[in-house]
């Protein structure tokens, strides 16, 4: 691609956290400036609007609770995705894996006779395994047949959603749901405890943070982590070093999908306390998590921060709707804008862009 001569673009030697942070930050600010136009359009001062959004999402109990509630699934899915991405597997399927996790948990909650104490643990395990197996499918397809991971995982999201739709409208529809497409409410022994007065199912939150920390150590300090990094950075070298790319990808995807599955358990057993239409169960967390993980530069620990950021953005949507009384669709517009500015800023991370004055 031809470039004007006055513009010099050089690859950065190393990417310092400082660069990442400052560039991302600048991008978000720029995005907010651009989005400000819409607020102006609706006669709301952008400054006031953003003030309200931040205070609304972080400044009070309700807002904070909402932010954290959104953060939980993003965190779990995001951490999982960083691992898949580390192994160079483009897992776009977190959404589907989340749904399958929710289905598995619901199945255990509603139809498996278990002693009360075992039910929740069983649901978490089932959710992890369910999501993990669903993720193994594209992993196998890639390893055995070289099927493009982006596409296969994306397609599987829809298949998962249709299966779920089928279950709640057919075999699993709850007698007490009065004909609506819901399962019955989970029994109390199958419901995740919440922090009183908030929708925060804390167990899942803790799981998320722990997962982030463990994942970080796993990737950075363990033998298997070493293998994952080698495979992700240079598959040929991995082959040469006798590391089985297949095994690494399968393990990474099992964990990646498993964590997404846990997020599904959280939404089903923590928020809705039953299984319902896929679009209602997950507010596209699996997709947002892609951005979360990608923004965290595939670092599981950083996901804690980025997922929180998007938690704020999503919760900020409520402020736009409730406090400012603006059309809810603006939320999508903002997310879209912020995303574009973030990906636009990528180039400043990968390349040092400078203007050169050439004497003629």
């Amino acid at each position, binding site marked *: 691609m*031809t470039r004007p001569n006055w513009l010099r673009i050089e690859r950065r030697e190393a990417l310092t956290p400082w660069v990442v942070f400052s560039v991302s930050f600048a991008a978000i600010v720029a995005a907010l400036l651009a989005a400000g136009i819409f607020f102006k359009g609706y006669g709301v001062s952008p400054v006031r609007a953003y003030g309200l959004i931040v205070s609304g999402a972080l400044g009070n109990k309700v807002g904070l609770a909402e932010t954290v509630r959104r953060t939980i699934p993003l965190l779990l899915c995001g951490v999982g995705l960083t691992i898949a991405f580390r192994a160079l597997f483009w897992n776009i399927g977190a959404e589907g894996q989340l749904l399958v996790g929710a289905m598995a948990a619901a199945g255990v909650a509603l139809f498996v006779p278990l002693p009360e104490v075992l039910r929740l643990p069983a649901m978490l395990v089932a959710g992890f395994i369910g999501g993990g197996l669903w993720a193994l499918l594209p992993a196998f397809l890639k390893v055995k047949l070289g099927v493009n991971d982006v596409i296969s995982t994306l397609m599987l999201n829809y298949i998962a959603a249709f299966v779920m739709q089928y279950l709640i409208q057919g075999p699993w529809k709850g007698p007490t749901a009065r004909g609506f497409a819901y399962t019955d409410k989970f029994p109390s022994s199958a419901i995740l405890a919440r922090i009183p007065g908030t929708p925060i199912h804390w167990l899942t939150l803790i799981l998320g943070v722990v997962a982030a920390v463990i994942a970080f150590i796993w990737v950075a300090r363990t033998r298997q982590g070493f293998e994952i990094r*080698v495979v992700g950075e*240079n598959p040929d*070298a991995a*082959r*040469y070093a006798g590391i089985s790319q297949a095994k690494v990808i399968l393990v990474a995807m099992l964990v990646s999908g498993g964590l997404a599955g846990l997020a599904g358990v959280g939404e089903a057993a923590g928020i809705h306390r039953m299984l319902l239409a896929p679009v209602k169960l997950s507010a596209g967390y699996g997709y947002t998590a892609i951005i979360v993980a990608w923004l965290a530069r595939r670092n599981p620990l950083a996901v804690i921060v980025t997922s929180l950021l998007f938690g704020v953005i999503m919760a900020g949507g409520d402020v736009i709707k409730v406090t400012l009384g603006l059309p809810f669709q603006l939320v999508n517009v903002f997310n879209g804008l912020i995303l574009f500015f973030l990906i636009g800023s990528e180039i400043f991370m990968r390349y040092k862009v400078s203007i050169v004055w050439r004497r003629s």
Partner: protein
Amino acid sequence: MVDQADAPVGVEVPAALEMHGIVKRFPGVVANDGVDLEIRKGEIHCLLGENGAGKTTLMRILYGLYQPDDGEIVLHGEPARITSPKAALAHRIGMVHQHFHLVATLSVQENIVLGLSEGTGPFLRSRATRARIERLAEEYGLQVDPAAKVWQLSVGQQQRVEILKALYRDAHILIMDEPTSVLTPQEVDSLFGTLRTLVDDGLTIIFITHKLDEVMEVSDRVTVLQKGKVVATVNTAETSKAELARLMVGREVVFRLEKRTHEHGEVVLEVSDLHASNDRGLPALRGVSFDLHESEILGVAGVSGNGQHELSEVLTGLRRATKGSAILEAKDLTGCSAREIADMGVAHVPTERIRVGTVSSMSVRENLILKSYRSPEYSRWMLLDEKAAQRNAREAMREYEISAPHDGTSAGNLSGGNIQRLVLARELCGSPRFIVAAHPTYGLDVGATEQIRQVLLDQRDNGAGILLISEDLDEIMQLSDRILVLYEGEVMGTVTCDEANIDEIGLMMAGSRREEVGL
């Protein structure tokens, strides 16, 4: 320093191309540092220099792939700004890259017309095009089927397509970047034949190489580059290999390392009737058999793509053998995985040290334990032992003179020589009994080359059996105790180094069996 002025000039030939004070910087290096170049119309002009001397960069600038940071280009007396390959082609400059630029899924004909704007609007004049391609092919001995898909062609044929592409765009200046590295001596001859006919038809050819013989054989004049600077431009007729070599490396080269001849021990590796397929599933090895002894270097000569690569992969567990066996210490390697073979103490210096041998984005320390990271030495339970890895790195860097700021530097930032030292340091630790070394010195400067060759000889003297795969015949001749020649996956013959003769080996590389070449 031979100067342009006192090179005796016969008739004054106008300069087809001049490059003045070309400067090109990359992060960390100055690839071209004020290069001046003058190419006369109708000559074959060699650009000689070691890998990394800046030849290719200079030509990429001329072809518009890079923009110089400074300097100017003058074509036929007119200053020219070449901002893109399109511009270069407009100036009738064509280039045949070392790694071919062909779209595998397109047909030969489609590849040739790609990027051209003949015919009316978007429509192609397939028939006319085809006719012209066949005419050119006829004229210059570049036969190839215009309808064939490129991925179905052999390497030699693909190079023909590349040349046809340039000719089809009636290039007046043709840049050839190391064109012979993939050809048999015979193919090389026919290529040189083609080049001469082209020059007779008035083309100007710039020929990039680092092989002195080729320079002497084909060129009219030579410009020698060293570390991004022009050291001399001389008439080939008035120079010698020795002088060129001196200009090229900046000092006299010792063309022979001293090699203690001694008795080989017993057989380390016994390969018999080995078969394997290449990535396209076509047979690449057809019944290869040979023995390798302790304290022996067995050189494998052959034009690239005749099975050497597959052989090295089969012996290191990276490729499944379809038939036959390779017995190492009473164990058949063909059944083993790469990991098992590595654990048996087999060292592998891979062809592509950067793309395969190391992980550029990971640290020197981590690259040094790329294979041994599982050993109790470097890991407790599941966790890696950073301390141990660090200690290991420090020692290795000292022992093999790997120059890097510290053991945390990512391998990608090291020079070629240091990367190869890194690979050797990793592979040779624990003195392996069997070493597969593929192109160990390819693209390295003379200093590194000598050091690495010496390391291999030391290993041999310590009793290791070494399979040396190289396209550099000089290297093979220098290091090997015996030389095995592969052609299309078959062994053409094995010769001991003292009875070896480069012409006969060349013939064997071209597919004649040893008995035929009368040895």
